[in-house]
């Protein structure tokens, strides 16, 4: 019970700060929308999007804006050494990690709420034809990306050149998430919908999430101890 309580307290703290400034939400959202626009100029020919462009653009936008949000969320913790204060408080380290992860996830969910319909609209992609599978892919993909990202962003708070190191570390490790997200979404968007394929990618993402959340919970304490 204490665990859940701690998680809620940490998440609520993050959401409260964000609700007051709305800095990360607005900047990340604007960044994601500009990302989609920039890709639209690259992948739309004569008014029609190229083959699988929509799925790829959606996930690249999520990955890029996710990196931005993660970096900003922990930069905020660094500025007045509040992360150190959190680490010094007598709470479970895994609970702290899960709390931060939930905060990032809620933020990314808010971004996706805008970006997904936008991609559907701009690229004439039927993203809501299979809502359950689509939401499953988005949810598991975002959890996988944010699980690795939260750990790396948290540990990079102490490092030099952290802004550039976060994407450098995060993208190679999250390649399976990107592949699974893009291919799963593409399977739902193509002319003949390939539901078994989408389900296979979804189960891969669930498996990835389980392994990497477990690993992150396990490594968070030794990595964060100075």
């Amino acid at each position, binding site marked *: 019970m204490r665990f859940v309580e701690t998680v809620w307290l940490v998440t609520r703290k993050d959401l409260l700060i964000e609700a007051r400034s709305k800095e990360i939400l607005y900047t990340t959202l604007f960044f994601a929308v500009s990302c989609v626009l920039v890709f639209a100029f690259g992948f739309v020919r004569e008014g029609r999007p190229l083959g699988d462009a929509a799925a790829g653009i959606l996930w690249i936008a999520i990955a890029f804006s996710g990196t931005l949000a993660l970096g900003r969320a922990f930069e905020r913790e660094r500025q007045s050494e509040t992360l150190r204060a959190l680490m010094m408080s007598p709470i479970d380290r895994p609970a702290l990690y899960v709390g931060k992860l939930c905060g990032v996830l809620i933020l990314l969910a808010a971004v996706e709420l805008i970006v997904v319909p936008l991609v559907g609209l701009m690229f004439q992609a039927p993203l809501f034809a299979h809502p359950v599978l689509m939401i499953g892919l988005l949810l598991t993909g975002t959890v996988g990306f944010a699980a690795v990202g939260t750990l790396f962003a948290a540990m*990079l708070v102490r490092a030099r*050149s952290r802004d550039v190191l976060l994407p*450098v570390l995060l993208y190679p*490790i999250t*390649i399976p998430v990107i*592949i699974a997200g893009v291919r799963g979404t593409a399977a739902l968007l193509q002319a003949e919908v390939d539901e078994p394929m989408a389900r296979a990618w979804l189960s*891969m993402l669930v498996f990835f999430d389980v392994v990497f959340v477990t690993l992150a919970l396990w*490594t968070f304490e030794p990595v964060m101890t100075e």
Partner: protein
Amino acid sequence: MLNEGLSARSPKPKAKMNRLYPLLLLVAAAMFAYAPFMILAAPYESTMGLIQKIFYFHAPVAMTMFVSAFVCGIASAIFLFGGRLGADRVAMAAAELTSILGLIVLVTGPMWARKAWGVWWQWDARLTSTLVLWLIFQAYLLLRRFGGPGSDRLAAGVALFGMANVPFVYWSVNVWRTVHPTTTVVPSLQPGMRGPFWYCFLAFVLLYVSVLGVRTRLEKRRAELEALYLAVEE
């Protein structure tokens, strides 16, 4: 820091191990000198001809690279959870070697692919997972080089995640692109090819072990020197 530097003086058995590395290097060098003759004597592959000979270096290096990646991951886990500084040095040496071996694999691979498949690169599971693994170890080295103080622990976390990531990358790329022409080469080798192949593999493993040992020792000496500098300054 000072205590660590002083207490880390090599005990006797370690010194014996250290003398073993030059010997291993010599054996590996002799094996490499003889390797071209063995490769030349191996039978010609009927469809690919001469270019297939690159296989005797390409595949053993790739296998050694994966071994090295796992050495780095396991050593990082020991460092992270056991707090053993020696394990961190092994992990760092293994990461550097993984990076070099990976470079060899990524250079010899496309050379072979250009002749055998007609393209320099294919997005198949083995190629892509090798590239991703190599990228992860580049990220590891970048973090250690530019991460500042305390980056050894962070790098250990990255190595652990990188190791866990390999099966996922392999599986996902395998489903994404299932166009690999050679799935199980090594078990189906012709008898005449098997000898040189395992010979080269052994040579690379010997080279790997000795360079890993020497590099780890160098890192240890560097840490000792740093501790002594700090002690003098105080």
